[in-house]
């Protein structure tokens, strides 16, 4: 150890981080202990190492004390490793002659016993000092960035991000799995609190996407494989057949009229099954692209092969209808990826007490959006499944939100859209509307005002969590009604409110395939299943995988303004990356000692990134430095110790192990 350390001049810096560390860890003791260790020439404690004076301290010592190795004990390296590497570099030292010790997140914040927390800090610092002694100067490799961007999900967030980037002259691939873009917003009637119609503000952006020269729009498409790394992703996209040739179709929609199905018979996805469509259809009038789609599940020709194919006739010499169309594989190179895959709504069947799926007149909020939408199944007239018009309506907030039995989180949008629906329903039907809420959450510009507007409109607000919705009557007035039983917590009295129609304000939940998507793009999810941001406050659209950003409700429940705001910032982040032109790769790649490799091939199948190839001429293995992500699996596995990894050499780690264990 000493021998190894002979030529080492190590500087150690222990940070107080105000009281964040100092309150639990005796930083003075740590610094004093370090000072006595072999190779250490300077050992200081300082209030805020990350501050300019803190960094300056390091720079000065390097120059004046001729330091050639530096250890900083402060917060998590994921927060400030770069900062201090910078400081070390300013001192004219190679930034990798540096090791950071995490005594905040991993110590002072998770322990209370000051003595033992200090012991831990000492052990970690000792290990770092011994490790850093072995550090070698390294160079960061620069890789150029591919200027194109992939955006997954064509909802309002994806659309906004796409347009922002495209307008900035970047080329964007927008991939959407549905037949049209627009996402959930396209299904809404009006938007709170301004009550402007969703279609009116959304469809112009949708058509802009279609028209934009810088945007390649792929609907009915899904990303199936992602390879590469920041700046250089290679993405495989599967484009499912639409059975209508998008190039040839002019969107006259005559084929739909011509379909042998005279009436629409198939439950219509866009209207959540409330309406019907033909096997050949277009999701909604303003769908983008304005191109019909054929559903092979229901099209006679696909089932029996014996259809008059009137759609083809109708299309005539344009020959846009192509029943033979096959799935298409596209492979694209992009520098950055924005995930805007959105959310799905809570399945109300999971709360049987509310009778969704049992009583026909119990609706979910999204269904009501369609019901009151002029382009919806009833042309905007509120007609219930049993054909009646509701005289009284109950809206239950927080269905599948703020609930120990389902989801604990607040879905953030339900209070406001419930008020919106209350307003619209009252306006359309003149019915008595009862809102059953737990707490009214109207935080947002003009939201509270909207709430008060509703109160003035005479919508009943009942502070209560509804116990059940049933159809059994206690009194004659309840006969034939849906009875909502709930304790009104403002008057501490159990009420039975008979209504014609019940609306369940279902919460927002992650897509059921969110986990697959997460794996596909190699990012993380929070325990609830939302995509995990790099930092909840300071890096809300970044993920832990460089070059992959998140926008909209895939990160957490969001209303339209928030989703759009986040989409903009994700676009900006992507642009920063592209306009920088290059990324610096952490020099932690593995390399094979050609002279020592025996060519046993043990490592080759282990590499998760297929970065290792076997050179048949030299009969040794070789690692492609660009493909290597530095996981080190091959290094651990190499039976003859002939693979090494920069920053994580065996010797460095072994030294660290001995360091944490060596008795003080």
């Amino acid at each position, binding site marked *: 150890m000493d021998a190894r350390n002979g030529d080492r001049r190590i500087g150690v810096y222990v940070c107080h981080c105000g009281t964040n560390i100092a309150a639990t860890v005796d930083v003075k003791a740590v610094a004093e202990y370090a000072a006595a260790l072999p190779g250490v020439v300077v050992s200081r404690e300082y209030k805020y190492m990350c501050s300019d004076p803190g960094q300056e301290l390091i720079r000065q010592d390097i120059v004046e004390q001729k330091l050639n190795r530096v250890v900083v004990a402060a917060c998590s390296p994921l927060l400030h490793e770069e900062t201090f590497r910078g400081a070390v570099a300013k001192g004219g030292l190679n930034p990798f002659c540096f090791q950071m010790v995490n005594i905040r997140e991993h110590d002072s914040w998770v322990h209370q016993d000051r003595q033992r927390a200090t012991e831990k800090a000492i052990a970690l610092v000792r290990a770092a000092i011994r490790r850093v002694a072995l550090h070698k100067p390294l160079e960061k490799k620069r890789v150029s960035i591919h200027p194109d961007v992939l955006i997954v999900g064509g909802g309002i967030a994806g659309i906004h991000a796409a347009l922002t980037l495209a307008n900035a002259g970047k080329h964007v691939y927008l991939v959407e799995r549905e037949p049209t873009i627009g996402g959930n917003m396209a299904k809404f009637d009006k938007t709170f609190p301004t009550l402007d119609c969703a279609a009116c503000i959304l469809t112009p952006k949708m058509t802009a996407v279609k028209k934009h020269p810088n945007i390649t729009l792929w609907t009915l498409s899904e990303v199936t494989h992602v390879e590469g790394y920041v700046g250089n992703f290679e993405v495989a996209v599967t484009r499912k057949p639409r059975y209508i040739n998008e190039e040839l179709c002019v969107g006259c929609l005559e084929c739909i009229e011509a379909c042998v199905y005279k009436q629409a018979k198939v439950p219509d996805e866009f209207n959540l099954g409330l309406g019907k469509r033909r096997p050949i259809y277009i999701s909604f009038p303003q769908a983008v692209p304005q191109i019909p789609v054929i559903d092979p599940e229901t099209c006679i020709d696909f089932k029996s092969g014996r259809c008059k194919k009137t759609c083809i006739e109708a299309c005539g010499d344009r020959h846009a209808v192509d029943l033979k169309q096959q799935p298409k594989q596209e492979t694209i190179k992009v520098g950055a990826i924005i995930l805007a895959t959105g959310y799905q709504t809570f399945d109300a069947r999971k*709360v*049987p*007490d509310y009778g969704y799926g049992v009583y026909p007149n119990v609706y979910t909020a999204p269904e009501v959006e369609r019901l009151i939408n002029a382009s919806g199944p009833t042309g905007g007239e509120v007609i219930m499944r049993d054909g009646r018009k509701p005289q009284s309506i109950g809206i239950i907030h927080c269905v599948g939100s703020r609930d120990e*039995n389902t989801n604990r989180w607040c879905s953030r949008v339900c209070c406001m859209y419930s008020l919106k629906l209350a307003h619209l329903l009252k306006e359309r039907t003149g019915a008595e509307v009862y809102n059953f809420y737990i707490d009214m959450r109207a935080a947002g510009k003009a939201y509270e005002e909207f709430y008060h507007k509703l109160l003035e409109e005479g919508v009943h607000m009942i502070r209560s969590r509804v116990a*059940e919705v*049933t*159809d*059994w009557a*206690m009194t004659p007035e309840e006969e034939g009604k849906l009875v909502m039983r709930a304790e009104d917590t403002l008057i501490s009295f159990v009420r039975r409110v008979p209504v014609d129609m019940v609306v369940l304000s279902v919460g927002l939940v992650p897509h059921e395939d969110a986990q697959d998507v997460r794996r596909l793009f190699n990012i993380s999810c929070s325990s609830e299943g939302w995509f995990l941001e790099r930092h909840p406050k300071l890096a809300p659209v970044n993920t832990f995988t460089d070059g992959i950003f998140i926008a909209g409700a895939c990160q957490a429940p969001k209303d339209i303004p928030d989703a759009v705001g986040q989409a903009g910032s994700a676009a900006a982040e992507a642009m920063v990356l592209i306009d920088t032109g290059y990324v610096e790769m952490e020099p932690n790649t593995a390399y094979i000692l050609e002279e020592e490799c025996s060519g046993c091939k043990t490592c080759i199948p282990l590499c998760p990134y297929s970065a290792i190839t076997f050179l048949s001429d030299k009969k040794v293995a070789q690692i492609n430095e660009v493909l290597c992500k530095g996981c080190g699996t091959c290094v651990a596995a190499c039976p003859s110790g002939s693979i090494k990894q920069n920053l994580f050499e065996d010797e460095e780690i072994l030294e660290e192990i001995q360091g944490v264990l060596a008795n003080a």
Partner: protein
Amino acid sequence: MKRYLYYPGCSLRGTGKAYEESLLAVFKALDVELEELEDWNCCGATAYMAIDEMNAFALAGRNLALAEKKKLDLVAPCSACYLVLNKAQRYIKEYPKVARLLEHGFKAAGLTYTGTAKVRHPLDILIHDIGVDQIKARVKRPLAGLKVAPYYGCQIVRPYATFDLMYYPVSMDKLLRAVGAEIVDYPLKTRCCGGSQKGTLPEVGLSLIHILLKEAGRRGAQVVSTICPLCQFNLDAFQDEAGKKYGEVSMPVVYFTQLLGLAFGFSAKELGLERNIVPAKRVLAKFEPAAA
């Protein structure tokens, strides 16, 4: 062959006799042995709980300790027993203080309870230990066309949903479907039967009874199937009175084990169906075996 300890409690030896008769018959038919817990004592019911919790735990806990000695799970068919024993079991497990206090009591009686012996309900055993398939296989005379309202009562899934959904239990539904009966949607399946109120606020009790029965009928049920001797007695015995006050109702209320028994080919007598106050014969006769 599966073995369990059997805890009849007071009801199954009294008003709930028919429950015991049919339960034993059905379990026998399914080749499940029920060995009566030797020297069992009153569960204390909810009443004692309300007066002196700790003593109530000791009283109920003694039965658990006895069961643990036998190294078998304890079957408690009566909802009140089931709930109380269950509650005692949980408190012993979750509250060291309770455990410690009871330990002394148990020691005095040369007993211990570490929580190995579990309290089980017949529904739980039939669904999870025996399985619907086994039960299907045993059916001799499917209850085809019999419309049943499955009624669970208040205590079986609340506050502890140990083997079924708290808000919408379905285990009995599954069993009855398995033997061919048709289940009507009965959202009142866990509502109060009015049992306790009948004693204190008769008119409240009666109205609850009336709603339960009327709704069962309105939903096309020919019979209400229950799992609790108190519910059964309450709904059966006071129909007449409730009817006079709120309008005619006549709805046979039977134990689910009696329906299973019929499907398994037992006679009405063997299943204690003659004990009903509101005769079940008129709806169930066609499922009974031809008198030998």
